[in-house]
């Protein structure tokens, strides 16, 4: 039936099955679906570091090429893929933590934002975005990752629970907290919000 359908009609899981058979077109399709969202995810999770995000996208897809059979086709590809990506981020956090400790706090890797921006003078979408990202970074990582997965990456609560290996209830409560916290924090941008 493969020849009767175009690759964009296949499910992620079916594409993975074809990748196991070394189907290049299946890989291309999966890449087209996930490369950009995954870069966005990595970028948000890895301190807006564009280069690092691209490296991580490369490594993530390289895992699929090297060991496609590590994915269990009975599972949801999306949640599996985000789990792998999430674990990569956690490993990176650990690495950075070690580096930070070794450099005795002199490493400024976390300070990637320009805090000198005059929030009061610039009422733009850009400002909102910067503030929003800053708030995300400052927020507890446990809450931030759930917020990103739900509201930016578009995963459902159930999928997030699967990705992070948490209960639905925990995800829901963290998500409610994070959403309320950020909405409250960014209320200063009401004029921007109200402009719509």
């Amino acid at each position: 039936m493969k020849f009767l359908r175009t690759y964009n009609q296949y499910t992620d899981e079916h594409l993975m099955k074809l990748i196991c058979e070394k189907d290049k077109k299946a890989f291309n399709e999966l890449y087209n679906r996930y490369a950009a969202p995954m870069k966005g995810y990595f970028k948000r999770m890895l301190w807006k570091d564009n280069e690092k995000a691209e490296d991580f996208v490369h490594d993530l897809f390289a895992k699929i090429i090297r060991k496609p059979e590590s994915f269990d086709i009975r599972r949801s590809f999306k949640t599996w893929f985000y789990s792998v990506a999430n674990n990569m981020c956690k490993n990176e956090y650990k690495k950075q933590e070690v580096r930070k400790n070794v450099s005795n706090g002199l490493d400024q890797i976390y300070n990637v934002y320009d805090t000198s921006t005059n929030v009061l003078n610039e009422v733009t979408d850009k400002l909102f975005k910067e503030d929003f990202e800053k708030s995300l970074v400052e927020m507890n990582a446990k809450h931030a990752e759930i917020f990103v997965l739900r509201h930016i990456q578009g995963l459902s609560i159930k999928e997030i629970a699967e990705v992070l290996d948490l209960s639905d209830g925990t995800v829901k409560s963290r998500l409610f907290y994070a959403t309320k916290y950020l909405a409250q924090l960014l209320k200063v941008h009401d004029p921007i919000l109200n402009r719509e």
Partner: protein
Amino acid sequence: MKDIFDLIKEQNYSDLSNEELDFGKELFETEEEFNDLKKFLLKSENVYSIEKVSPKVKEDLDALFTESKSYKKIIIRYAAIAAIFVLGFYIIPFDEVQRDFSKGTTQLADNHELIQKEKQDDKLDKEPMFRSSKSEESKLTKQNEIKSDLAAQEKAVLKDDIVIQEDEDQHQVAIIREAKREVNHSAKPKQLQYDRVEKESEILVGSPSIANENRSAVSDKDGIFLQHQSANKYAVSLKEINLENDECWVAF
């Protein structure tokens, strides 16, 4: 499946049912809070433009894909060769090949006598007691094990007798007798249950001291045997009876 956040983004406060309002109670209590949340969610959803991934990433991945594909091809090729080799090993009748090979090189297969001898040797090999050594005997301790061994011996002896009668080749008869001697030799372990007989002279055909309702003495050209009739299998050559202090012990 839609959740409360989808409802907030898609509907107006006035459109929400009581159940939905109750469900969203943790997030908003008033219409104003609902609207603030709605605006925030819509804004944060659109705050990020679609990320563009550098074409270099895709190029590298394409190269990796091609590499892994060719690597897999090599593995498959080697696996196929190995599979053919293994299958060939099981399909080709190596016995015949070896025999043909021997025939072609040494001409030994033409010797009918040797083939027959080989067959006889194979038969003997199949009977484990024929190959038991003295050191192995000492390890036998359980009476029932030995009894079953004796039964196996008798089977072997009877079988061999048929072979002897059928075979006219004296050389092969000698081989069989040699084997029988081995059997009888191994058939006198000390752990056996013994029936005591006072003197060797008492062990005669039909002797009352050793013959009863369960066993009797029989003789043939190879000697005198004590046969256990209930089992109808046990036979011990009296030639191998252990003589100690003029007493004769017959092993069963």
